[in-house]
């Protein structure tokens, strides 16, 4: 328990260092563009594949489960949209990205730590925490909400493709369901969750890497810890945000 509080304390101290005034904004802008490409654009294909299949599976499951003359067919489209917007595209994609992006960040920064690259930056007079971590946080907080919207779109298209190709329902019914009881605020909710989860994944993973010690085994452990800690924190904040922003 003491260890947990110690880690939480160190995490916030690291964040204070990360958000202190950057050395030179032009360098940070370049690094943010680089990180948007490395952490954001490089996650598009994984997000697309998973979202398309999940959208298709959700539509298929709904079609099977709601097989009743008393339930209108358009409910399949409605349920697919709600699943994608409210939970899947923000939370589940965040959990998947915690595995991909989180472990990448922890192992990159952890390797820099054990090979003394972070010490080298410190010796130069660079605020290493800010230089290495801030661009990653800014990049993911900007890009993950976009990735969330992309995931929603791809998932809904996945559902549409399965609905039209299997003949289990009319595509017109599916589209009607997509617009049924549409609440625009649910998109705001998804975007806020995307941004918050991006911050959680990036900052926790960076923390795990930044304080890695020893050898490559420790970097591996830091990477695993980053994924586990980010995932658990995402679930806790999912609950909190759902309660706060009830749609």
């Amino acid at each position, binding site marked *: 328990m003491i260890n947990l509080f110690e880690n939480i304390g160190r995490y916030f101290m690291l964040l204070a260092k990360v958000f202190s005034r950057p*050395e*030179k904004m032009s360098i940070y802008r370049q690094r943010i563009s680089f990180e948007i490409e490395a952490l954001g654009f490089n996650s598009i294909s994984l997000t697309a594949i998973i979202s398309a299949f999940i959208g298709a599976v959700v539509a298929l499951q709904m079609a099977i489960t709601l097989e009743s003359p008393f339930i209108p067919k358009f409910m399949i489209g409605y349920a697919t949209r709600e699943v994608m917007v409210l939970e899947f595209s923000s939370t589940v994609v965040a959990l998947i990205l915690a595995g991909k992006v989180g472990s990448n960040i922890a192992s990159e920064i952890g390797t820099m730590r054990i090979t*003394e*690259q972070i*010490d*080298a930056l410190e*010796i*130069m*007079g660079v605020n290493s925490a800010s230089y290495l971590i801030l661009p990653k946080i800014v990049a993911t907080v900007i890009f993950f909400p976009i990735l969330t919207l992309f995931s929603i779109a791809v998932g809904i298209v996945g559902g549409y493709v399965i609905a039209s190709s299997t003949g289990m329902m009319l595509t017109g019914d599916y589209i009607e369901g997509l617009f049924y009881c549409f609440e625009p605020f649910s998109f705001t909710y998804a975007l806020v969750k995307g941004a918050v989860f991006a911050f959680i994944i990036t900052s926790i993973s960076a923390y795990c890497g930044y304080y890695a010690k020893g050898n490559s085994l420790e970097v591996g452990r830091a990477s695993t810890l980053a994924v586990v800690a980010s995932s658990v924190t995402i679930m806790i904040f999912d609950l909190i945000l759902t309660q706060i922003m009830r749609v």
Partner: protein
Amino acid sequence: MIRADHISKTFEGRTVLDDISVEFETGKTNLIIGRSGSGKTVLLKSLVGLHEVDSGKIFFDDVCYTDLGFRERKEIRKDIGMIFQGGALLDSSTVRENVRLPLDLFTEMTEGEKRDRVDFCLERVRLVGADHLYPSEISGGMVKRVAIARAIVLNPRYLFCDEPNSGLDPQTSVVIDNLIHDITKEFNITTIINTHDMNSVMEIGEKIVYIHEGHKWWEGSKDNILQAENPELNDFVFASAMAKRAKSVAK
């Protein structure tokens, strides 16, 4: 000049540095030698501020470094160059980008001025033509030379080198030693080198400090190290059978 005044450092109850006082002179290659685990890396990292000492003071010229806050230390660190054991080059940057980084962060130079300065430093370490390569694409000796170029790009007043020859063949080691020695003389830098390479000691050791079990055990120059009567130092210097035979023949 860099001066350590009665510094001590403990890790988890184990004393690694015990009341060390030593002065490193400007314009000279100062060597810290000692066995593995003797505390010489901790001493070097304490001098440079990567470890906080438990007691004692460290002075950079007349400034007491240990009494300074984060921002004031940052200013002094801009005058420090350091060469790490493994080079510590940024893996994701090319040779040129590694050398250029301090200029990007701390100077208002134009693109042309930066390019000229990087070219000068790369030329100084004889690395022209390798500027587009990544650290993973160059040899160990080249990594060390890039690290030297990066360390001198801001014209430092103090240069720290942590085992600059580790993992290098004897010929390349001599090249690196001579390069560091020449740069020290050329720019009148206070250079501190942490090593256990006796070739380095005999090549460039203008001032030598021998650390044994966390204590300063002996201090002198390469001219008097061979005649020293200190038994622990002799065990270290004449560790090999060949060196022992050479010493007995010389006597």
